[in-house]
């Protein structure tokens, strides 16, 4: 994987030293909060409901074991022994004291990590397919491109004060696991008829208050033009984006208001201007970065132990749900679920982080990934090592076999932590997962994505959940609105609102009614919830959701 150059290291150390002094000046009173706030946000430090929160970037979700161990150390030494993995493949520490944050940032720099541009109206952490470099279905590993974009966007002098935050995601496969159509810029590595590799550029997607599906601005961008084209898009947005109204400031609104054709024309004009400023040095840099992401030396061994382990029903169940096809047929991609029913989605204790680091080091070519679905991925595990890996995960309570199932829920921190939240998310996720675990229906239900956000900003991606739940404050009471039929993949659809919301007590029974309706309505066990919904539309599900409510009212 990519290692910091001397330049990167010096830059991060300089920023860390500057922030140490800024914190000292805030504590001694020489900086006011109004002066300090933009400085702390540039370094990912938020003030939440109960404490400060530090958001640390995990670029394209990739970590090595030393980095994961350092996160564990930070969690233990300066936090409450755990960290929270987010839908932007970042990690958040929920309880740091202000005076300790400079030490935490130094500790991050020791392992080539930082929290720069994890907040503010800048280009944020670039995300990528969490199966990058491992999956059987990709054209190329998207991470070198993501790293190039990170180097270009970090401290980019023109883009530190954009109209609003700006998020980029990259995938190298047709199957979209990186939600690229819900990003400000989504990039898909594609191949044209001539066999050349390039990029499909998508712009103006987003969730939040006004959800929009991204639109293709260039169907095939030659590989060498990536940075000048990205720069052209962001600079057109920087000029046109609405600074008069925060709610209309994202590029999705700019694209919506001007139309994709007008935006494309402006971007192409700008591209013609800036292209010559890129001398090609970026392409040399990309070659170096690509070399850093060369695949590991695969091991050769007999996969018989994997086949033999299938006799164990626990192993088999886990293998069925938590393994994905690897580019090397003797390997598998392992998804480690952080969604044990009743647990907080995305939380890992320091002990769990250390165990995952050890397993990555001994059995996984020293690589870990964080998925936007808030799980940890071991991307390269030889099949012969899977039985041992499973046993180690079981011993640490990390072998929950639920990837892609109803209890594998995305949930934002919600009003348990977040100062912006309008309702809680975590307890709803806990209750749904626990309820369906009790019912033993999870495998019967099959593929189903529930995504929960605790406010309209949609960090929990509720609009693209097959079942989306949005927590709101309705006259001083937590209220949960359901959307149905959303999809965050290559066939992205924004879910439809089902109707009036439910109270915290009513929401789990409502989800249960929905699921029973699906089980009754589906054409057969292979038809997923989303397929059934697409075949039948909202009305039968709406009837199931509101039947009981109406009966009670009558």
């Amino acid at each position, binding site marked *: 994987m990519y290692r910091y150059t001397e330049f990167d290291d010096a830059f991060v150390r300089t920023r860390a030293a500057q922030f140490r002094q800024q914190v000292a000046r805030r504590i001694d009173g020489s900086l006011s*909060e109004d002066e300090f706030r933009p400085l702390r946000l540039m370094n990912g430090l938020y003030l939440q*409901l*109960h404490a400060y929160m530090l958001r640390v970037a995990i670029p394209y979700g990739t970590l090595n074991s030393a980095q994961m161990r350092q996160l564990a150390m930070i969690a233990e030494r300066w936090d*409450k022994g755990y960290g929270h993995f987010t839908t932007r493949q970042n990690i958040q520490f929920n309880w740091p004291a202000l005076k300790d944050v400079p030490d935490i940032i130094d500790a991050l720099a020791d392992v080539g990590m930082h929290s720069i541009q994890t907040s503010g109206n800048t280009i944020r952490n670039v995300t990528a397919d969490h199966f990058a470099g491992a999956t059987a279905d990709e054209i190329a590993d998207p991470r070198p491109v993501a790293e190039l974009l990170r180097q270009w966007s970090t401290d980019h002098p023109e883009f530190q004060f954009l109209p609003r935050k700006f998020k980029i995601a990259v995938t190298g496969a047709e199957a979209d696991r990186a939600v690229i159509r819900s990003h400000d810029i989504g990039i898909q590595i594609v191949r044209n008829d001539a066999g050349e590799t390039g990029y499909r550029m998508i712009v103006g997607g987003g969730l939040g208050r006004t959800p929009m599906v991204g639109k293709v601005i260039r169907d095939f961008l030659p590989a060498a033009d990536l940075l000048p084209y990205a720069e052209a898009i962001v600079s057109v947005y920087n000029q046109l984006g609405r600074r008069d109204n925060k709610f209309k400031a994202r590029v999705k609104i700019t694209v919506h208001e001007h139309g994709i054709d007008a935006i494309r024309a402006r971007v192409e004009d700008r591209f013609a201007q800036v292209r010559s400023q890129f001398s090609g040095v970026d392409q040399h840099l990309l070659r170096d970065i690509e070399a850093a992401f060369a695949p590991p030396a695969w091991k050769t061994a007999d996969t018989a132990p994997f086949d033999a382990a299938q006799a164990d029903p626990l192993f088999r169940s886990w293998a069925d749900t938590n393994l994905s096809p690897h580019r090397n047929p003797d390997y598998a991609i392992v998804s480690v679920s952080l969604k044990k029913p009743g647990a907080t989605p995305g939380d890992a204790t320091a002990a769990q982080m250390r165990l995952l680091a050890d397993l990555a080091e001994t059995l996984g070519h020293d690589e870990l990934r964080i998925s936007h679905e808030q799980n940890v991925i071991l991307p390269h595990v030889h099949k012969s090592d899977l039985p041992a890996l499973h046993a180690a995960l079981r011993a640490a309570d990390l072998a929950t076999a639920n990837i892609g199932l109803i209890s594998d829920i995305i949930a934002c921190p919600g009003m348990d*932590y977040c100062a912006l939240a309008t309702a*809680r998310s*975590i307890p709803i996720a806990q209750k749904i997962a626990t309820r369906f675990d009790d019912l033993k229906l999870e495998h019967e239900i099959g593929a189903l994505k529930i995504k929960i956000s605790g406010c309209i900003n949609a960090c929990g991606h509720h609009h693209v959940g097959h079942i989306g739940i949005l927590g709101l*404050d309705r006259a001083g009471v937590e209220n949960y609105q359901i959307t149905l039929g959303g999809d965050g993949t290559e066939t992205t659809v924004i879910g439809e609102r089902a109707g009036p919301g439910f109270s915290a007590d009513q929401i789990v029974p409502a989800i249960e009614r929905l699921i029973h309706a699906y089980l009754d309505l589906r054409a057969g066990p292979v038809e997923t919830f989303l397929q059934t919904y697409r075949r039948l539309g909202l009305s039968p599900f709406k009837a199931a959701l509101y039947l009981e409510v109406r009966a009670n009212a009558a």
Partner: protein
Amino acid sequence: MSRQFTPKVITANALLEGDAIWLTAEDTWSRDIADAELIDDEAHAQLRLLFAQSQKDRVVGAYLAEARADGGIPQPVHFRERFRTRGPSNYRHGKQLAS
């Protein structure tokens, strides 16, 4: 006619820990809402808020929050303020540890 003023407390986050705190009648800050000054006069509330906001080396983001007296002791009205008095619901972290 303007709306009738409802009782308030002044709350903020402590600068150093970020913890939720409340302004007392003695011009100090407490980590327990029970110690807060319950304010039922609008003009007085504005004066107290100005005082709170002037304490920039101790507190962040001071604001007026709805409160009610329960046996003479201030209690939060809105669920968000209630959560601030105890901490998150997924772990026994924050203030609920002490109670």
